[in-house]
């Protein structure tokens, strides 16, 4: 697969080989980075980060990744400060920004915005989240984190907990995990169940899927518990949110029945779904997961720019 100029829009566009390749390159870059401190693969290259919706973590992680590769960054972190406010179309914004940069990272509240941006732009476009649809780089860093922690993905039992209805991270992750020999527990309030079309698809692909509301009873089965925040901002109705707010809280008491090797992940930010006391336990993998964003995004930037092979 020729990665130079390739867009990274949806995990659905990836084959298992693609995913494995990115994870291998990320690992190579992480090791190189540890050795040398900084790299210069992308010297002279410019990344444009177009964040039409706020996201400190993802944006900083991309910016850090580009700086670590020796490149530079331009961009904005809210649509309010752009010509979009004047009524400019997304296509025109993209066509303008591509004149200034070599690669574009876009986060947009509308589903499909990154796909549209990629169709318009001649330079590579990387999706940093489009509405409640996809967040492929988060998925890749999640897989990278699991692989680094367990040395494998195949054979693991993974629980996805929380907002499985609106949470794009769990949608993409579940789709990517379908490439592997895993057993999945989908743990959520009834109101926030994983969309049926995704569950059907997982089953069609042979994944053993269990849907449950029972976190306590499921914990002993798991190698990985992937916790998500119940995202108030995605609920069309505040009352619906209040019904499920605070449904699950992971604390040390709950973790007593977990396997010793069980790891907890979270795309962050968290609100109250993981008690801070868990941070110090050997189960907590979420801050390591945050770090994984840098090597994985370095790999994607380097590959799509054609400066890393």
């Amino acid at each position: 697969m020729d990665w130079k100029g390739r867009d990274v829009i949806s995990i659905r566009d990836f084959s298992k080989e693609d995913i494995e390749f990115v994870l291998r390159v990320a690992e190579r870059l992480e090791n190189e980075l540890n050795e040398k401190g900084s790299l210069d693969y992308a010297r002279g290259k410019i990344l444009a980060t177009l964040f039409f919706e706020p996201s400190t973590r993802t944006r900083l992680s991309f910016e850090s990744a580009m700086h670590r590769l020796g490149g530079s960054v331009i961009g904005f972190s809210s649509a309010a400060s752009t010509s979009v406010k004047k009524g400019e179309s997304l296509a025109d914004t993209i066509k303008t920004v591509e004149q200034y940069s070599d690669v574009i990272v876009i986060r947009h509240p509308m589903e499909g915005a990154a796909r549209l941006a990629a169709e318009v732009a001649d330079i590579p476009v990387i999706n940093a989240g489009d509405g409640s649809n996809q967040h492929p780089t988060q998925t890749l860093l999640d897989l990278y984190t699991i692989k680094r922690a367990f040395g494998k993905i195949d054979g693991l039992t993974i629980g996805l907990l929380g907002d499985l209805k609106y949470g794009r991270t769990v949608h993409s992750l579940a789709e990517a995990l379908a490439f592997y020999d895993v057993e999945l527990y989908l743990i959520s309030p009834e109101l926030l169940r994983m969309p049926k079309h995704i569950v059907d698809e997982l089953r069609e692909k042979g994944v053993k899927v269990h849907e449950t509301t029972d976190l306590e009873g499921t914990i002993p089965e798991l190698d990985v518990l992937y916790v998500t925040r119940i995202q108030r901002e995605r609920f069309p109705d505040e009352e619906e949110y209040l019904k499920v707010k605070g449904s699950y809280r992971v604390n040390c008491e709950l973790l007593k029945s977990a396997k010793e090797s069980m790891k907890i992940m979270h795309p962050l930010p968290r609100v109250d779904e993981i008690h801070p006391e868990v941070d110090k336990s050997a189960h907590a993998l979420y801050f390591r997961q945050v770090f994984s964003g840098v090597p994985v995004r370095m790999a994607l930037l380097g590959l799509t720019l054609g400066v890393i092979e």
Partner: protein
Amino acid sequence: MSELKVTAIKEGTVIDHIPAGKGLKVIEILRLNRVNGGVLLLAANVSSGKLGRKDIVKVEGKFLSEEEVNKIALIAPNATVNIVRDYRVAEKFRVSIPDEIVGILRCPNPNCVSNHEYVRSRFHVEGREPLKLRCHYCERTIEGDEILGNL
């Protein structure tokens, strides 16, 4: 009671075996009712051995492409198309669903970019029986009545 006769056409296209009540939708999808278009005839609720009742659409002076005609497979999967030349059926084929549906179906997801930006809607056909489409942009899948409701 007098029987309604639909005139035979000399040159053009006859779309037969449309489920009763869907004839107007076929006309709308194929944009056959343009003022400067050819003569258009709709026969509705015609007795049919296969369907009980069916609609038939005849359009004179226009030969629809296979791709154009295949769009109607979304609402009339068993329709047949007759190409008429000099009052005779010169060619006859059944409609089939294309691999991609472009520009005729609105994405039901209100937050899909295709409903906000200047872009033609586009769906990939994921399954034919039952029909299942995936929006090229927001990746949401739609089936059944949701497809018909957004045509």
